[in-house]
Every structure is written in C-alpha cells, then in structure tokens.
C-alpha cells in the first residue's frame, strides 16, 4: 500500500518538475513549482526527515515561491525572449543530459551501505544537551556550515540591495502597499499574525528537542510580517534604520562571539564546552532568529523606492 503511495508521489513529482521546466506560461510554472515544493515536503515526511520536510515546505515551496511570483510579475512587463535556436537547444540538452549522467554515476558509485556519520552523532548527542539530532548537527557538530549559511543569506540581501539605483539609496524597501482597511486582506493581516507569532516561537523553541528550529520559525515570522506589510498595516523599514542593521548582523555576530568563546574555553573555533553546550546552542539560535526573519522577509518586496509612487 505504501509502495503504491510512494510511487504515485514520485510520478507526480516528476510530472510537476516537467511541468515547471516545460511550461510555456511563467505564472503556471511558478504555481507548479510551489506545488512541487509542498509535494517534496510530503516525500520528506515519508522519508522520516521531518525537519527537512518543514524547511522544504516553508522555504522551498513558500518563500522561494513568493520570490518567483515576484520575478514572474516583473518578467511580464519585460520584452518577450526570442525562442531558442536549434544550437542553444542542442547545447542545453547536451549539458543537462551530461549533468544527469554524472550525478547518476556518482550516486551509483557510492558504496553500499552508504558512508554515514549517523552513528557518531547518535553516540555523542548527549554531550550537546539537545535531543533533536538535526539541531545537534547544525549547531554543534557542523556549526561552521550554519555560520556560513547565515553569512551567505546576509550577502544575498546585500546583493539585492546593491541592485537599487543610486538615486533611490537610502530609501525604504519595497513599494508602500495599501489595502482596503475593512477588506479581507486587512482582516487576515490582523487575525493571523498573533497566531503565527505563537506558532513561530513554538517551532523555534521546540527545535532543540523535536523537529523545528530557527529556520522554519524565521520563515513563519517573516511571512507574518510580510502579511502585515502587504495589507498596508505596517511599513517596511528604511535601509538606513539602525535597528534593522543591528538585527541583520545580530546572528552572525552572536555566532562568531560564541565561536570565539569556544577558542578560549576549548581551544577550537566554535568548540562548545560540554557543560555549557545547550545554553550556547540556544544563544546562537536566539541570535540567528531576528537575522533570518529580517533577511527572509526583506528578500521578498521589490527593490528600493525612495519616492512614494502613486
């Protein structure tokens, strides 16, 4: 029975992927991509990767989907692209096929059973004080990756901002939105954020011992903020705002400070002394939460506008 369900999900996934790539209509392709992210989340649940499933649904489906809807809307006003020539098509198909072949060869070349550090993690997780192995890996065993990830996100936001025309710097992020104050958007932007805040902080806090964590929580909090902004109930901050900049660097700075404390206490950057491992992990997560929330939310609105537009 489960085999049937799994096969159906896989066939749907491949079909959706083909729809996204081959679709002629940009908006339909984006809708397909969001459905693809949600379905992929379900597949991760089936694979027992609840943390990955939540991240995939929140970031792969939701946030990336929102980014792509914005891109599709901007593309609508752009000049239509000339159809691909036969030469381009041949090159694209050749590169794609070669890439697939190399990936397949790599996967098939893996020894059986695949090399795994899972038993090492399971053996040492008690020293970290957290019970969710994903959190232990992300913030204790491989915390360098997570630090670099946070920095990459910050760089991505700076890259988006650097696309703003000089004349509009330093302006507010995005176009001010207005909505009917008695309309349904304003209604849900008033009702949902309190619920979303509780769920977001719950997922953040539960992340130490259960599936969840700062990334999923930050996506929910960012979505709530965007909802308020898009209903015209709140404004995006100007890029020169001090609290905005402080929030953006809080995560990396906090992370690096904990890392430096590791040098002093254990002799290794990002080393966590076993006695304080859990408080330090929670400190990193608390520092990262505002940074991730701000970055994920501020990637979505269109670039800077200094002058208010009609």
């Amino acid at each position, binding site marked *: 029975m489960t085999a049937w369900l799994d096969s159906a999900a896989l066939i749907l996934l491949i079909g959706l992927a083909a729809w996204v790539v081959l679709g002629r209509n940009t908006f339909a392709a984006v809708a397909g991509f969001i459905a693809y992210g949600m379905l992929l989340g379900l597949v991760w649940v089936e694979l027992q990767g609840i943390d990955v499933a939540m991240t995939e649904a929140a970031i792969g489906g939701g946030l990336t989907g929102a980014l792509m809807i914005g891109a599709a809307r901007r593309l609508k006003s752009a000049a239509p692209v000339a159809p691909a020539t036969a030469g381009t098509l041949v090159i694209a198909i050749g590169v794609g096929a070669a890439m697939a072949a190399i990936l397949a060869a790599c996967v098939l070349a893996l020894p059986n059973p695949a090399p795994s550090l899972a038993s090492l993690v399971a053996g040492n997780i008690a020293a970290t004080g957290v019970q969710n192995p994903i959190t232990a890996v992300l913030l204790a065993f491989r915390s360098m990756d997570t630090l670099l990830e946070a920095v990459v996100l910050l760089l991505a936001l700076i890259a988006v901002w650097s696309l703003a025309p000089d004349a509009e710097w330093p302006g507010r992020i995005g176009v001010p939105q207005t909505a009917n104050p008695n*309309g*349904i958007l304003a209604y*849900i932007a008033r009702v*949902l954020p309190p619920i979303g805040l509780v769920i977001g902080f719950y997922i953040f806090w539960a992340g130490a011992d259960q599936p969840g964590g700062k990334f999923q929580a930050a996506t929910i909090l960012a979505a709530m903020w965007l909802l308020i902004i898009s209903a015209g109930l709140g404004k995006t901050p100007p890029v020169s705002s001090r609290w905005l900049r402080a929030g953006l660097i809080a995560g990396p700075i906090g992370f690096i400070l904990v890392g430096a404390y590791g040098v002093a206490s254990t002799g290794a950057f990002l080393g966590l002394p076993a006695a304080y491992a859990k408080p330090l992990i929670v400190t990193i997560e608390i520092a990262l939460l505002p940074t991730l929330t701000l970055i994920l939310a501020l990637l979505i609105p269109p670039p800077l506008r200094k002058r208010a537009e009609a």
Partner: protein
Amino acid sequence: MLLDLWTIVLVSMGVVFFLAGTVGLLRFPDALSRLHALTKADNLGLGLVVIGLLPRLTGIADGAKMIFVWLLVMLSGACLAQLVAHLIRQSGDFKP
C-alpha cells in the same frame, strides 16, 4: 474494530470531498465556481479526515493541534478564496 470502522468511514468521506473538489476545479465553467468547489474540499474534506483520525491520537494536545490545523486551513482558505474572487472581479473576466 469499531475504531477502524470510524476512521475508514470518515476519512473516506473526507476523500470524497477532496475528489469532488478536484473534479469541480477541473470541470466547472468559470473561475468563481471553481473556487467554490475548491474551498469545499479544504473545509469539509480536511475536517472529516481530522475527525476520522482524532480517536487514534494518544494525547489531548495532539488532538488539539490537529483541530487547530483544520481551523487554520479553514481561515486561510476562506480568506484566500475571497482575495482570489476579488481579483477575478477586478480583472473583468467574470460577468454576473
């Protein structure tokens, strides 16, 4: 045994609503009718599935979470349907 019957009957009823919603989405002639079909699937279909699965949960907290998910889906579904319907009317595709 009785528990199995309860779950099978209610989840099947929920699935029927999802199926009907999907058929409506594919077959109904205009966007507003399609929207109507879709929201029925969210509200009633998911509700029946939740009620069917409730007695299988171990704790009250788990059950409360599942009911809460259903309520949230209803809220977002209803609001989104309104927003989409508003856009359809604004775009002028719909002539009453």
